[in-house]
């Protein structure tokens, strides 16, 4: 199953037979003059693989993005992707401007509006640039080719003798000139994308350059003018607070709202399973909600955050083979040493700073919702189903989103709640979840167990690799080291299809799904093998890697870090970890300081090296790499969801501890220049190494092998005693 399919599964998108699609003309309506290029970008392979594609009710099926070149020379790209902070609204126009040979400032982008943009699955999985980028570039090249043909005719100069600069076509001497805008004046031209060649990397003027391209969202974000879903404040708007159960699986026996109803200006709505209090002031709505008296039946808890691992091993679905070669029994015979270990990780929250928020209004039967979501189109479908209205009666607009990381990809109930309540009250309604609601409904990164057995021969070569992951999913479970005998299986995961009750609450994709868990286990285990073999961990890895790009990132990291297998003073340690995610090669090295008495870990320095093929936006890549390191410190050191059955004990940031300024290591990022390889993912890959690189550095510092994430001070301290 591809990541896209897994998201579709997790979204529980209903596949409808009617799947009514409309024609391009119907969708666009009256569009006026200009050159239009329509193209299909994104999860194309996915739809060919699946027998029944998700419904795109009300949208054309032959394109999911298009661009327009208007008579004023401006270029506009319409795409259903959203800006989560990852910088897509800056990097996507760069791709287009490059291939079109127009000034970057003349390119506009319209994103995440279900009335203006064609259907799109969603923004996740590092797909915006990786899958969308190449297609967008080809669309730009297609438009340029069409415009050159028109210019050749107009100027009576053969195409081969024309050149383009900043949207103006001219002959070699520059005496005959015509702009893109003049060429399309009074015309309406539509083109489907055909096969057109792209610019070679050597002639790039915009992509991959060292000069920093200013983020388009910058001025809005430093002045407070950037609007998020909660910043749409409509006249007469009510703030809604929805009644929540104390635990997943709890059933409501009784809710007494009489005290709340007595408060001035409070409206109470009961509609099936939805009980909400609304008021023009958020404070008053909060107070009213606190007055509701409830009684619930809560099923007894059968496991908690400490016993979940046994539960996973017992109740996991049947394991599937991810990869195998040779014969494990043969490998065992060749082994002088066998190392077996079990690695654990707890549930981890997305904890975006913006809570799930939606502002809805109904005017003349049309529902408009400004929504914080990574998936506006599937979310629209949920609203259509909940309200039982025609698709054209619902419009989802995604403004700036305050972080996603997968946490706003599969859970859109806030949007449905706002739309339902707006319809029921006849007033604009804002639903802004409080922090405890976000923890309660977060589709957590799943808890998981990884068991690895591996052998070493007398020459220090790995003989076999028996890897079994339960709960996390198969992402990056494969091993890229040269090992003759291997057997790799995966059972259950972050996507749909787990047996009921395996996880007592929602789980879902968390930045680089599965890969953080699997990389932590693999790279910890390889480190143990290296120590057993008495070989430096970097040298040991290089001895087992034949992939040239993998070798290169590890060697580059070692050079940048100044990796020396030398004795350090106790309490100081170096670690290494490497991996491949989303087609991108990443290597990381870190220095830590461990206080043995308390187990407290301070990460002093991190070097992160990344080969992502061609680079679109270098500064954007560095922002993602730095962000991944800071975010990764959390799952490595503190982040862990405590729970008892369906009850989430985490309510706020006092118990669930995110990385802070004082944790900040010295960070160095190196982006390998590889312009002739296709663009691969950039935002997720570097986070996969953070757990293992710190685990390995802790071992180097104090000899404690910590096999459970997060590596809290307590666990490190226990490890120091144990070893």
């Amino acid at each position, binding site marked *: 199953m591809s990541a896209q399919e897994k998201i579709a599964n997790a979204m529980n998108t209903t596949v409808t037979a009617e799947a009514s699609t409309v024609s391009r003309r119907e969708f666009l309506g009256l569009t006026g003059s200009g050159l239009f290029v329509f193209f299909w970008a994104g999860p194309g392979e996915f739809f060919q693989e699946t027998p029944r594609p998700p419904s795109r009710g009300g949208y054309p099926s032959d394109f999911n993005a298009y661009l327009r070149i208007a008579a004023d020379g401006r270029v506009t790209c319409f795409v259903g992707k959203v800006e989560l*902070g990852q910088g897509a609204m800056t990097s996507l126009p760069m791709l287009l401007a490059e291939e079109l040979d127009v000034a970057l400032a003349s390119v506009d982008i319209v994103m995440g509006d279900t009335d203006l943009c064609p259907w799109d699955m969603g923004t996740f999985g590092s797909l915006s640039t990786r899958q969308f980028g190449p297609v967008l570039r080809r669309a730009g090249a297609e438009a340029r080719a069409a415009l050159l043909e028109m210019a050749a005719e107009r100027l009576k100069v053969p195409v081969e003798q024309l050149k383009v600069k900043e949207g103006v076509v001219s002959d070699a001497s520059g005496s005959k000139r015509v702009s893109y805008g003049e060429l399309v004046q009074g015309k309406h031209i539509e083109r489907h994308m055909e096969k057109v060649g792209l610019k070679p990397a050597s002639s790039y003027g915009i992509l991959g350059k060292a000069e920093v391209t200013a983020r388009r969202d*910058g001025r809005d974000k*430093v002045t*407070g003018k950037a609007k998020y879903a909660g910043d749409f404040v409509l006249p007469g708007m009510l703030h809604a607070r929805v009644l929540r159960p104390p635990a997943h699986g709890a059933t409501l026996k009784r809710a007494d709202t009489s005290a709340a109803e007595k408060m001035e200006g409070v409206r109470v709505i009961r509609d099936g399973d939805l009980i909400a209090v609304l008021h023009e002031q958020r404070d008053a709505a909060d107070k009213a909600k606190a007055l509701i008296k409830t009684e619930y039946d809560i099923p007894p808890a059968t496991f908690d955050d400490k016993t979940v691992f046994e539960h996973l091993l017992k109740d996991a679905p049947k394991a599937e083979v991810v990869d195998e070669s040779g014969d494990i029994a043969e490998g065992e015979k060749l082994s002088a040493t066998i190392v077996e270990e079990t690695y654990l990780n707890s549930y981890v929250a997305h904890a975006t700073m913006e809570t799930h928020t939606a502002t809805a209004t109904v005017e003349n039967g049309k529902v408009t919702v400004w929504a914080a979501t990574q998936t506006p189109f599937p979310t629209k479908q949920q609203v259509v189903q909940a309200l039982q209205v025609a698709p054209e009666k619902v419009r989802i607009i995604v403004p700036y989103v*305050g972080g996603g990381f997968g946490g706003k990809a599969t859970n859109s109930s806030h949007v449905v709640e706002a739309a339902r309540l707006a319809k029921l009250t006849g007033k604009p309604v804002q639903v802004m979840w409080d*922090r405890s609601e976000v923890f309660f409904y977060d589709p957590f990164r799943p808890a998981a167990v990884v068991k690895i057995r591996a052998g070493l021969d007398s020459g220090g070569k790995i003989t076999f690799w028996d890897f079994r992951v339960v709960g996390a999913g198969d992402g990056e479970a494969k091993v890229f080291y040269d090992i003759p005998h291997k057997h790799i299986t995966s059972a259950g995961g972050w996507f749909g299809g787990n047996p009921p009750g395996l996880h007592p609450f929602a789980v879902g994709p968390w930045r680089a799904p599965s890969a953080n868990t699997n990389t932590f286990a693999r790279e910890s285990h390889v480190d143990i093998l290296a120590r057993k073999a008495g070989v430096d961990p970097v040298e040991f890895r290089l001895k087992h890697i034949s992939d040239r790009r993998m070798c290169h990132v590890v060697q580059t990291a070692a050079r940048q870090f100044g990796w020396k297998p030398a004795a350090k003073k106790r309490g100081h340690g170096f670690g290494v970890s490497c991996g491949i995610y989303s087609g991108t090669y990443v290597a990381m090295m870190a220095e830590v300081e461990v206080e043995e008495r308390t187990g407290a870990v301070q990460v002093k320095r991190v070097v992160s090296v990344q080969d992502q093929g061609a680079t679109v936006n270098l500064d954007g890549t560095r922002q993602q790499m730095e962000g991944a390191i800071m975010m990764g410190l959390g799952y490595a050191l503190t982040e862990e969801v405590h729970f008892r059955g369906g009850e989430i004990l985490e309510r706020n940031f*006092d118990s669930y501890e995110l990385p802070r300024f004082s944790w*900040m290591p010295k960070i160095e990022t190196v982006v390998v220049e590889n312009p002739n390889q296709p663009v691969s993912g950039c935002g997720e890959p570097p986070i996969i190494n953070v757990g293992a690189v710190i685990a390995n550095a802790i071992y180097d510092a104090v000899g404690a092998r910590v096999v459970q994430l997060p590596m809290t001070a307590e666990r490190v301290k226990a490890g120091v005693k144990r070893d």
Partner: protein
Amino acid sequence: MRRTITFTLNGKPTQIETDDERLLLWVLRYDLGLTGAKYGCGEGLCGACTVVVNDEAMRACTTTLREVAGKSVLTIEGLEREGKLHPLQEAFLRHHAFQCGYCTSGMILSAYALLRKTPRPSMEQILKHMDDNLCRCGSHPRVVDAIQEAAGAVKERA
């Protein structure tokens, strides 16, 4: 208690008649239309709602209107002067010291309060002062760079 509360908001005298127990965050956002201050946690744990009250960084989500009566409140909307960004805003922009931007208003105003008291903060002072402002995107290194760069410029402007 419902009464008229008077305070200075972004340099302008402001009056509002409402319950003085109401929280500054909701009043700023929904009564006064200043949505730059964000809700993140509601308990003063994340800093997304930070505003400056009489030169002190305060969490608007746990501050009542009564507490700001007669005082001077500065929000992100009040930092720009005659269309010119404050040096901290300039520095955040130049360093791309944000990704999703949801914590940014609070970051800038926390840093503003720091620089009012300590115009040339050491690295240690910056980390200590900013430690309770959370950022999930991990823009911390760039925020620190931006604050360091702005430190000199702020002094000149003040």
